[in-house]
């Protein structure tokens, strides 16, 4: 046997393992979706706040206008959630960001290609649920400081399903995990919330903060995984990299 065998990786599973880990930790796709979700919640929050102010001030024309706007934003977000344009947009941003590193698709079972209809329906239900939450707050049936636990009831399972179907890495699960834990702590009376008049931050900070934390951890891990992958892949390869290869195996 020539020394080619000595240049083979000792354990091929290491290359497979680090390729998978790297592919699953590329969180930019997650980041773009995170921005869309945050955008949805911000707009719903603003419109709900406008509706509440109009109702309190007795300005019925502004109130009806904001209710119509709320309905419009709801249909707009349903469209955003299911349209091919969104998928294409998220895809293009991901390709642009990872352009130099190249494209890698982590899943082998096409889970990420198309979301099942029940998942799309669940996303729609999540939107309706949040609009309902906004309306409950507007009409003072729900206190703003409890919007986060109210939101966590549906957002945590939706995020888990989305992460599973998109084949994202372990680090992406930090978002629903921390978001759910935050809700439990808040309900248990642990002082993790913001006092009045900063109640709105009780929903904004967990969504922005935990989402961003998961994405950053995933991104940092993807850098490490890529470095490890390059190291284990290139081990012993440099001496052959520019050879033409037909040597005898013997």
């Amino acid at each position, binding site marked *: *046997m020539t020394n*080619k*065998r000595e*240049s*083979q*990786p000792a354990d*091929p599973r290491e*290359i*497979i*393992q680090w*390729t*998978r880990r790297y*592919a699953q930790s590329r969180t930019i796709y997650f980041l773009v979706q995170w921005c869309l979700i945050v955008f949805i919640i911000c707009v719903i929050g603003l419109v709900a706040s406008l509706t509440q102010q109009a109702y309190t001030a007795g300005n019925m024309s502004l109130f009806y206008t904001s209710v119509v706007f709320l309905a419009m934003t709801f249909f707009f977000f349903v469209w955003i959630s299911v349209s091919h344009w969104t998928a294409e947009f998220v895809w293009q941003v991901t*390709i642009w960001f990872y*352009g*130099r*590193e*190249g*494209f*890698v*698709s*982590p*899943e*082998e079972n*096409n889970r990420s290609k198309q979301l099942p209809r029940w998942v799309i329906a669940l996303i729609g239900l999540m939107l309706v649920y949040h609009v309902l939450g906004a309306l409950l707050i507007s009409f003072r049936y729900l206190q703003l400081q409890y919007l986060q636990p109210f939101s966590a009831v549906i957002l945590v399972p939706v995020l888990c399903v989305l992460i599973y179907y998109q084949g994202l890495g372990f680090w992406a699960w930090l978002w629903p995990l921390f978001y759910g834990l935050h809700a439990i702590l808040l309900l248990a009376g642990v002082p993790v919330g913001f006092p009045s008049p900063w109640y709105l931050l009780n929903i904004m900070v967990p969504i922005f903060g935990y989402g961003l934390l998961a994405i950053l951890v995933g991104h940092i891990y993807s850098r490490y995984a*890529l470095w490890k*992958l*390059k190291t284990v*892949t*290139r081990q*012993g*390869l*440099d001496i*052959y*990299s*520019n050879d*033409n*290869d*037909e040597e005898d*195996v013997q």
Partner: protein
Amino acid sequence: MAELDRLIHEPARLRILTILAGVEAVDFNFLLNTLGLTKGNLSSHMDRLEKAGYVKVEKSFNGRIPHTEFQITPEGREALESYWRQLDSIRNLNTKTEGKG
């Protein structure tokens, strides 16, 4: 003992197939960046793997930029697994021989 598959035994091609075995698909840039080969060298390896039926190639355009995507075929996966089985048995044989010696 059956002879090792020479096509896969080449270190760069072995690594390419191993990477492809871990994911659904990768593109040319990813392999180039990960393996640190030259473009010409990588192209030549991919041609050989494609001709052997071990890799499926899909060419498309991303706007005006050509995009080439690679996937391992079931034949490629089988060949890779068989290669590792053979290599493991050679290694075991060597270990036993060294143990006796």
